[in-house]
């Protein structure tokens, strides 16, 4: 999209003017962000009338700076509506009807409508494109049956981005379509999916004869994968990159644990643990610096491999970091203060609590699985960055229905 010209100063002034009208410390989230949207300051690279001004995306930083400087309250998109803002809005803008843009975009930005993404299925994890939930045309509707899994926020979502198979007789990538799913529609059942920590961050979503009007299909029939892949990419680059602050993040927590526990170890054990922590500090630093280089390279317009490296490196590093954290605790690692009552996630523990480190130790096991397993990431690095050849494919050029699959 061609960008309108507007100077940084003009945008600053416009933001200040808007803030004089709407003060986040006074009015509530919906009101404030509603006004921000109406002023085209929600996502400045969107067109006018849809919460933007047609500017370069980088200029959004100026708006956020101004709001941070002029008010105590700042609503992080990631807390308001992560999937809706990160993936929903772009998809609606690119593939949605005028009516969808008019009715959906503002409520996405304000957070009135939470969105979720229904891609993964029990039988389609690393191989998402192998998904088997079926959508069958019936008059003006599509009737969907199947099961989705790992669906964040589904239990509070108003809308879901659903990819389902509309044609099993073509190769897997070509037979899917992308739908906007009304999460309140009959036949949509959302159940919590409890994990190693006893919490349910995710959901299972069962779809039984769910009817979706044909006009809620985004992109053309069979284009589901093309539409979805863009959002998937966003997800992956969102992960990895380590902490912004030197010595911040997990390594900071582990180093504080060490200060607490060092005296409880023998001199020899201390020296061994100390060297391990130092190695982890070095890798944490290099993860931080490498993603910094990636951003710099990105700005310079020649994105190098550093980006994709981050997801893999961070996943493997964080597992080791928290393992070391528990080793530092010695016998205290036997205790799990919080217990395992099955529940929805609650507010995070304080970072200086033992429980926080133990929770992270358990939670980090998913780092090398969620958003692309480390095996998939190594394939990507090997094939897309280093240009190594792919494996012989047995599922590439045959109809999806003829590809062997489990249950």
């Amino acid at each position: 999209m061609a960008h309108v010209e507007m100077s940084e100063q003009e945008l600053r002034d416009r933001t200040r003017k808007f803030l004089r009208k709407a003060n986040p410390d006074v009015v509530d989230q919906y009101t404030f962000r509603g006004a921000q949207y109406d002023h085209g300051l929600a996502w400045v690279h969107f067109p006018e009338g849809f919460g933007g001004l047609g500017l370069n995306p980088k200029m959004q930083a100026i708006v956020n700076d101004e709001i941070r400087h002029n008010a105590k309250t700042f609503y992080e998109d990631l807390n308001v509506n992560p999937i809706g803002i990160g993936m929903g809005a772009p998809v609606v803008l690119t593939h949605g009807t005028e009516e969808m843009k008019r009715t959906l975009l503002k409520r996405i930005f304000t957070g009135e409508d939470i969105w979720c993404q229904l891609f993964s299925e029990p039988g389609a994890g690393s191989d998402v494109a192998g998904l088997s939930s079926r959508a069958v045309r019936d008059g003006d509707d599509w009737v969907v049956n199947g099961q989705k899994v790992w669906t964040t926020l589904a239990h509070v979502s108003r809308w879901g981005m659903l990819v389902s198979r509309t044609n099993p007789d073509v190769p897997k990538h070509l037979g899917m379509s992308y739908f906007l799913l009304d999460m309140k529609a009959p036949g949509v059942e959302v159940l919590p999916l409890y994990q190693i920590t006893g919490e349910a961050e995710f959901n299972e979503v069962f779809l039984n004869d769910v009817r979706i009007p044909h006009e809620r299909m985004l992109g053309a029939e069979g284009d589901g994968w093309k539409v979805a892949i863009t959002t998937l990419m966003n997800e992956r680059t969102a992960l990895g990159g380590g902490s912004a602050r030197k010595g911040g993040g997990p390594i900071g927590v582990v180093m504080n644990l060490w200060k607490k526990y060092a005296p409880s170890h023998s001199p020899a054990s201390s020296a061994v643990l100390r060297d391990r922590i130092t190695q982890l500090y070095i890798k944490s630093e290099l993860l931080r610096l490498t993603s910094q280089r990636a951003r710099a390279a990105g700005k310079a317009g020649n994105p190098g491999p550093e980006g994709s490296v981050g997801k893999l490196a961070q996943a493997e590093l964080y597992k080791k970091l928290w393992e070391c954290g528990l080793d530092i605790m010695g016998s205290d690692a036997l205790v799990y203060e919080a217990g395992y009552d099955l529940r929805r996630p609650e507010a995070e523990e304080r970072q200086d609590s033992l429980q926080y480190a133990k929770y992270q130790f358990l939670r980090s096991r998913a780092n090398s699985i969620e958003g692309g397993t480390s095996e998939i990431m190594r394939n990507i690095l090997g094939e897309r960055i280093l240009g190594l050849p792919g494996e012989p494919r047995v599922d590439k050029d045959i109809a999806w229905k003829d590809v062997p699959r489990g249950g």
Partner: protein
Amino acid sequence: MMDFSFTDEHEELRQMVRRFLEDKSDEQAVRATMTTERGYSEEVWTQMAEQLALQAMVVPEEHGGAGFGPVELSIVLDEMGRALLCAPYLSTAVLSAYALREAGSPAAQKDLLPGIAAGQRVATVALVDAGCGWSIDDVETRAEEDGAAWRLSGRKVHVLDGHVADVLLVVALAGDEVGLFRVEPGADNLERSLTPTLDITRKLATVQLSGTQATRVDGGGDQTAALRKAVALTTVALAAEQVGGAQKCLEMSTEYAKTRLQFGRPIGSFQAIKHRCADMLVEVEFAKSAAYHAAFRAAGGGEEGEILAAAGVAKSYCSEAYFDVTAETIQVHGGMGFTWEHPAHLYFKRARSSSALFGSPIEHRERLADHLGL
């Protein structure tokens, strides 16, 4: 050169225990039991004694025991680790039985071992003081003579099944002697509380002793060496439990890798998964060598230092191997392996916790290095 091979009797014992546990301690039973406060099924505990006399394994025959040794006990624990059995077996039939065997007075043995062997008692040893290590030398709880009896003061933590044990054996300092004392579960000035554990398939408790009345049950004199041996023999058994769990996880992972299809292929046909399973296999085989060598070594008697060294090798290696294998098991299972409903996390937590029991791998290696004169 030590002969490692199991006899047919060993194999029969293994099959007998496996059949019993497949029947009494399947995944459903484990999940039902682990969430109870007691942490075990009294019914299964009784059947284990009446049908298989498992609690009697290392209890001498003159005290109603089976008079078996470390090798047979390791076979039993191997199977219990495989099944993730929730029961006060390690505390009662291993740690307490060994402690009484090595340090108990004839009277105490006569009094307590038969009940343990018969599965009528749940016993444990309170060893670690709050904020202290697992070595006998780290014990801080004090025992003061009070007429015929003794009074104990201290705070014992990580006491296996300490919240339910009816025979509570406490390691305490009487002057400069380390002694073994018995506290009545109903005694005054005794507080026992269940610890919320990372591994909820094995219960730990905190025991607060505030001038609590006790009787001395050791044979007299300093019991440091005797108790150190009892603990070493317990770690040999624990190493076998770790091997059983690791072997089971390897089997789960292999089975999943054969049946889980992605990209139109079993994931086990991808080298990323296949080679990971191969590396797990190597670790499991090494762990078996470590655990069973230590058991045969302990059974063979011989030089104390050699037994402690073999136990240290086993505990240090099997702890790390079990942890690696369970971590890889989660990874091989992908998202499914991270869910509560899949058993992988139960083994993972058991592995992490059993690695901390009786001292960390680093600590065991430090002692081994001293032994090797490094």
